[in-house]
């Protein structure tokens, strides 16, 4: 519970900080620190369900501070968290380079997802090359900030988790019952 609250607090602090930072470092060059916390939780958080319960409220908080539809960032953060959680259990994402590549790719997925949901639910514009160009700059900023942010999440997890939670929780995938520890 303590780790849950601390990680949630960290995510919210990141959200507020990035809003203020954006006044100096204009988008797309300002990193999405709160999203990186969600990615960090997906990659390093031992519990699968408790991580979900951090990622979604952080997404809703972002929706309130952003010009998005309510639930749009929450939806994309949920997808990001699930992808990170599954990828970290299937691939070796322990080093800085693999994490950087993962963050870079996920930023594009996030951008396309936002454009698609905007187009579908709000009828706002269409998907264009512009989405990819703005995502490129944003992806570079996110990769640069991913190292310290994910290390911070990892440190919080190690510092505040009790022994039981600190073990990597098994993720049960589908009917086959394949359990990945």
């Amino acid at each position, binding site marked *: 519970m303590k780790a849950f609250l601390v990680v949630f607090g960290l995510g919210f602090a990141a*959200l*507020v*900080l*990035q*809003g*203020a*930072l*954006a*006044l*100096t470092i*204009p*988008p*797309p060059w*300002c*990193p*999405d620190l709160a999203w990186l916390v969600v990615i960090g939780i997906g990659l390093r958080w031992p519990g*699968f*369900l408790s991580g*979900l319960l951090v990622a*979604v409220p952080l*997404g*809703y*908080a*972002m*929706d*309130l*501070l*952003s*010009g*998005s*539809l*309510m*639930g*749009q*960032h*929450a*939806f994309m953060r*949920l997808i990001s968290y*699930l992808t990170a959680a599954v990828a970290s259990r299937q691939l070796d994402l322990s080093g800085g380079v693999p994490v950087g590549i993962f963050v870079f790719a996920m930023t594009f997925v996030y*951008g396309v997802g*936002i*454009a698609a*949901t*905007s187009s579908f*639910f*709000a009828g*706002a*514009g269409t998907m264009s090359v*512009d*989405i990819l160009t*703005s*995502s490129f*700059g*944003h992806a570079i900023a996110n990769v640069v900030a991913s190292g310290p942010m994910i290390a911070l999440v990892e440190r919080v997890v190690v510092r505040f988790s009790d022994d039981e939670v600190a073990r990597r929780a098994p*993720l*049960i995938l*589908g009917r086959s*019952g394949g359990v990945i520890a």
Partner: protein
Amino acid sequence: MPDLLKRVGAPLVVAVLLLLTIISMVSDRRSEEEVGEPLPWWQAIVLEVSAPIERIVSAPIDGLKGLFTDYVDLLNVRSENRRLKRRIAEIESENLQFREALVSSGHLARVASMRDEIEIPMLPAEVVGLDVAPWFRSVLVDRGAQHGVEPGHPVITPEGVVGVITATSNHAAKTMLILDRQSAVDALVQRSRARGVLRGVGRSRLEFEFVVRSADVVVGDEVVTSGLGGVYPKGLRLGRVTELRDAGGRLTRIAVIEPAVDLGRLEQVFVMLRRGPTMDLLYHANRAEEDLPGPISSGHVPPEVSASAEDADERGEER
């Protein structure tokens, strides 16, 4: 049974959360179209907490930036001063000619009375946060419902239009910039009066789509609000035409507009404490009929700025 629960537990929670977020998006769209009430307390609390913290966090950064820009400004102050003096002289001369023309045509008294009618109270506000996601264009300002700010109020600077308030808490408000993909403003070319819709495309430029393909417009023309959309008053500066091109297969033409306001460097803005007839209809849709005619959104706004009931008929497509 516990084994089954364990097996379906995670997928079930994921499915419920996915559904919840999708329902949120659908219901948010519906609420934007139908109700548009101020945020409920559990949503407003995020704005309430964020705005003061963002203000504190950005203060030292702003201070450092201010020191640098003050120094740079000082270097240019003499030439700037000379240029401004010259410009004031030109404007005073033009003003004199206009007044002369108005007096001779007997319209001065009518213009003066119109000015009194449309004068709108302004509330200065500070931008404390910017949207980090590069796909949306919105800012957070440090004035909210307690200061009389309500969704639908236009936000401007002395240079021109910034956007419109979309959500408020007690001490903060979210503003959608005109650059946002969801923004559309009914506008006209100041010189030729050619009308069209100015849309945000998510970048630092705007696109102005003309109603008539043969509209008289050239690079350098000023674009202002037409007042017909029912959100912004008439005559506010939106930007300048920088490029003209065909609208890809459609029968209209598009002008690329550079916004009059540098929306990437917003610091202080003014909230116009008056809602246009369109926004009033949108945001009062679920209220009693007797509340409808007055577009005034706060109690301390003088009654003389109330638009007449006929104004409500002039609603357009601005958002």
